């Protein structure tokens, strides 16, 4: 690929990311899902762990609840992305621009997971302020890398959600359904060893499983964060491929049936 083309694609991706982060940050719904909800769930986990005595550290709970927030905002933001654009009347406009649809949609789905960063910041701050949680990260630099890779991995998973949910008429209901099961099977709060064996397979193919592993080992020590980081990246590539295929299929189908605009 010639350098000018690479630069151009890079610009589309980065300016799109900035644009969508800005749009999402203006939405009440995202503030709700990425700030209030994680803080409440973090509090529940803090109190439960404190009362149970068998507690892991508070930092463990804060990270878990934060990543739950990242998943929620990716799920609701990306899952309904195409429907929302259609409803708003902008779907036709982003299909009719010269770059392939994937270059237009990828920044959007990554933006939905990137605003989830608010969640992690919120649960960490909440823990420090109200629960006296010591914020000591074992490998701060690794933690930052793990965070970026996790957000990217979830954003790419968002691309798969965006391109598959569109085939289902009520994307929102599907989002409602998939919030808890993914929290459960990716082990963000509950260790996977407590769950039945067959669920491990589901967790294995979902980026949050590896993301939380990387974040936890970087923050709390006791392992190599690169395993999680590497798996997140690997799965991200697979998601990109799947998302690309589905999006192509969607665009062809929509042009064939004339379903880009709201009838």
């Amino acid at each position, binding site marked *: 690929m010639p350098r000018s083309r690479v630069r151009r694609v890079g610009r*589309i991706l980065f300016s799109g990311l900035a*644009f969508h982060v800005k749009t999402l940050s203006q939405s009440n719904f995202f503030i709700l899902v990425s700030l209030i909800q994680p803080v409440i769930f973090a509090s529940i986990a803090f109190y439960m762990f404190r009362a149970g005595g068998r507690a892991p550290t508070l930092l463990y709970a804060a990270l878990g609840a934060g990543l739950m927030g990242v998943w929620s905002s990716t799920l609701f933001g990306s899952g309904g992305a195409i429907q929302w654009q259609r409803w*708003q009347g902008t779907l036709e406009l982003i299909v009719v621009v*010269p770059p392939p649809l994937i270059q237009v949609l990828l920044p959007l789905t990554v933006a939905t997971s990137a605003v989830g960063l608010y969640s992690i910041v919120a649960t960490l701050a909440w823990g420090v302020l109200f629960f006296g949680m010591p914020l000591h990260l074992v490998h701060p630099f690794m933690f930052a890398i793990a965070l970026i890779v996790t957000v990217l991995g979830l954003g790419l998973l968002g691309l798969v959600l965006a391109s598959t949910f569109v085939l289902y008429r009520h994307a929102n209901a599907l989002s409602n359904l998939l919030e808890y099961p993914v929290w459960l099977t990716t082990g963000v709060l509950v260790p996977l060893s407590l769950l039945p064996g067959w669920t491990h397979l589901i967790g294995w193919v979902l980026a949050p499983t590896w993301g939380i592993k990387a974040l936890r080992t970087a923050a709390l020590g006791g392992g190599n964060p690169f395993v999680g980081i590497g798996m997140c990246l690997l799965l991200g590539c697979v998601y990109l491929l799947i998302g690309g295929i589905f999006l192509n299929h969607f665009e062809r189908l929509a042009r064939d*049936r*004339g379903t880009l605009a709201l009838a």
Partner: protein
Amino acid sequence: MSAVEVRDLRRTYHTTTGVFKRRPVEVEAVRGISFDIGEGELFGLLGPNGAGKTTTIKMLITLLLPTSGTATVLGLDVVTDARAVRERIGYVFGGDRGLYERLSALDNLRYFAELYGLAPSTQRARIGYLLELVGLEGREKERVEGYSRGMRQRLHIARGLLHDPPVVFLDEPTIGLDPVGARELRATIASLTESGKTVLLTTHYMFEADTLCDRVAVISKGRIVAEGTPRDLKASVADSTIVEIEAYGVDDDTVDRVRRIPGVASVSVEDRDQAQVLLVQSSTGLELTQELLVALQAFRVGRVASREPTLEDAYVALVEES
């Protein structure tokens, strides 16, 4: 070379109907149309709602695949060269959707400037120029959700022109605008051809087509029923007279009866306040007023007048015949 070439274009939709037993239904939206638009021409596609205007435009801008037939824009095929076509066209539709509400006009334009690959160095100047062209300068930092219909429509136009496309498609751009807003928008549209662009405009406002278009095609039930300059179309009904009859409470049966009076070419009904106005078209020289009043004797009749035909009358006659 023509800017747009359409040959025997067809489009069928497959849908289902029925609540319990779903039956497949085929709807032929466009049934084999052909036309050419010359470079720098402002071409109007006229037709009632559901005639196939929007379907035709969507095939030309690569959003919809034709069922059969071909279409090219600047020599590029809309199916096989979709990406190249997309780089060279602008698309603007009417109504107040299609914008990112929570962001400013400037952010909306910047985003699409990136998607159309405008060089960063020229973006600012281009956006500034377009904001001035559509009269939004000074308001560009406000959120779109507070914009009036007219402002939204002008923003749509600015967005469609960002990459300076040689061919512009305008799908009912003045729909729902107030008279002043619509007039300003028409002035903007007229200025597009002055800068050498080719424009395809769809509308169902006849005076709009009459004042703006170099050539028009009338489309009805998926077929082109007439094509030519507005003057040509008017000439096709030049030897006829329009009788306007103001009446109250006329029912459909009576309108059908009027339609069957020998010598009547077409009848249309417009609602005005509490009254209706029957527009009866007939060949010049036939004095039908008396007969018409007899047919309407059961109803209260107001003002009666006869006049020369307009483009609208030509259009009504064409659509009714089809």
